[in-house]
């Protein structure tokens, strides 16, 4: 429609654009600028050119942070998607019992990350935790869920999956409900069993939903911070220092705004690459369909 006056659209967008300029675009530009300075927030900043980038890449630490973040993301996204879809298929049934189970699983998504992280730190405590006594009862060896560098990141991914699977389930449920019943009935008449009906009827129609769940849980996993800060503090032996925690650590423990900003710039770059890749995957899939 035609606006009544030429300035109207910009007046309507104005407050939002002003807020984003002030709190997103300008800070992003400032971060890029500050990444070229060495600054501890106490003395004056000193221009150092690309030295901050060289410093964070030193000894391959940047590569390791990236690898940890990606590894954690892959676990979280695939875990939440598979579990969420399985639970949606299992629980898409009438009745109060199934409604209760759906609500119970989804409630973890509503409860704060702090509460979830604190709860699981104690459940997984190596001496007195419930997980430890379970392992003892089953005569299995001790696992340092949060103290073994090989296990800690997987543990954090597991807790994250526990927290967000309810979200994936709810999105898949709404996707499932959009699949027309008549299609299922027709396929059943043609003699397709449950597995074939899922493969050839449900899944093709569910693909956009799956892509949406993948994107959103990827974003969540890339922004993970609370579980790291509360459960491991980035340890043991930096095994759980993933991107956001690494930025936080540079500011609050190393007092280095420059290095934190450099990490932030790299982080946004990685996000852009991932978003572009996802967009391309979407488009090529759309072209084929």
């Amino acid at each position, binding site marked *: *429609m035609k*606006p009544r006056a030429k300035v*109207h*659209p*910009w007046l*309507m*967008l104005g407050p*939002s*654009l002003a*807020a*984003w300029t*002030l*709190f*997103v675009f*300008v*800070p*992003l530009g*400032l*971060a890029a600028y*500050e990444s070229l300075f060495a600054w501890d927030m106490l003395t004056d900043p000193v221009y150092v050119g690309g030295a901050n980038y060289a410093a964070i890449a030193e000894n391959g630490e940047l590569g390791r942070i990236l690898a940890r973040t990606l590894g954690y993301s892959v676990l979280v996204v695939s875990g939440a998607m598979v579990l969420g879809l399985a*639970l949606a298929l*299992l*629980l898409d*049934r009438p009745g109060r*019992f*199934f409604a*209760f*189970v759906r*609500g119970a*699983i989804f*409630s973890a998504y*509503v409860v*704060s*990350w*702090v*509460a979830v992280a*604190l*709860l699981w730190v*104690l459940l997984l405590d190596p001496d*007195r935790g*419930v997980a430890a*006594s379970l392992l003892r009862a089953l005569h299995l060896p001790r696992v340092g869920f949060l103290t073994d560098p090989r296990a800690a990141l997987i543990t954090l991914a597991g807790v994250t999956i*526990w927290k967000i699977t*309810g979200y994936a389930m*709810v999105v898949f449920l*709404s996707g499932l409900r959009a699949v027309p019943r008549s299609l299922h009935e027709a396929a059943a008449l043609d003699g397709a069993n449950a597995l074939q009906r899922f493969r050839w009827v449900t899944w093709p129609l569910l693909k956009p939903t799956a892509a949406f769940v993948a994107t959103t849980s990827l974003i969540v996993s890339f922004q993970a911070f609370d579980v790291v*800060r*509360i459960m491991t503090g980035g340890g043991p032996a930096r095994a759980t220092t993933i991107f*956001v925690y690494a*930025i*936080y650590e540079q*500011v609050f423990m190393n007092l280095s*705004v420059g290095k*934190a*900003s450099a990490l*932030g710039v790299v*982080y*946004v770059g990685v*996000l852009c690459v991932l*978003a572009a890749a996802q967009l391309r995957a979407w488009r090529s899939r759309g072209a084929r369909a």
Partner: protein
Amino acid sequence: MKRGPAFVPTVLAALASAIWVLPYAWMVMTSLKPLDEIAQDPTALPKRPQLAAYREVLELVPVGRYLLVSVAVATVIGLLQLALALPAGYALAKLRFVGKKTAFALVMACLLVPAQVTFVSVFLMFSKVSLTNSFSALVLPFAASALGTFLVRQALLGVPDEIIEAARLDGASELTIIYRILAPLLRPTLVSLFLVSFVFHYSDYFWPLVMTTDDTVRTLPLGIALLKEPGSGVRWHVVMAGNVILSLPVLALFALAQKHLIRGIGRS
């Protein structure tokens, strides 16, 4: 035969719900135990249930004040987001103007830049005007929501132009059209948006952690997380009591508004 197929799903569903419900049950149980009982057997039911841990939380943490700050922050953010997303979404969905594509691209770009990248600069900006440790520092950066704007736009695309044209003929101003005529039509979307935003910001840990350096506007998640700081030896029953206090408000809200929340998430 008829009960056969439903039996397996019921058992599986019961198992699944155990994975999600038992940790909560353990949390409540632990909060009711004295410390020596926890040390003996972390999985046993409390022999002498007591509320001492809750009393201790209330002594250590000004729960009332922190809760008030958390609720106020989350409410004001939610309302501001609706107030700003409505006109912005209206312009993007309904009006023709030069630069619309650019404006829309800017909104989508904001979705890509998380707070975890901007917080250092935003913190420095706020400290220049002495606004760290203020309500504004917790609220203003989230006043405009890219996701909210996008969803309002999507919802408005489904509203016929005739409604707007008729209102214009009746002499309604654009503001009246947006807030008085279209907003009520979008009620389900707006309620869901508000709830999703409320739940997120009530629970947010990162932003209040990095924006505040003292007690002035501390939020409840921060206060509760402080119960488990290293050094003092973790007092499990106290931490779990704090957890129960932190989780109850959102779980109550969830129980009351489950439908809206789920619809908000399912549709987005």
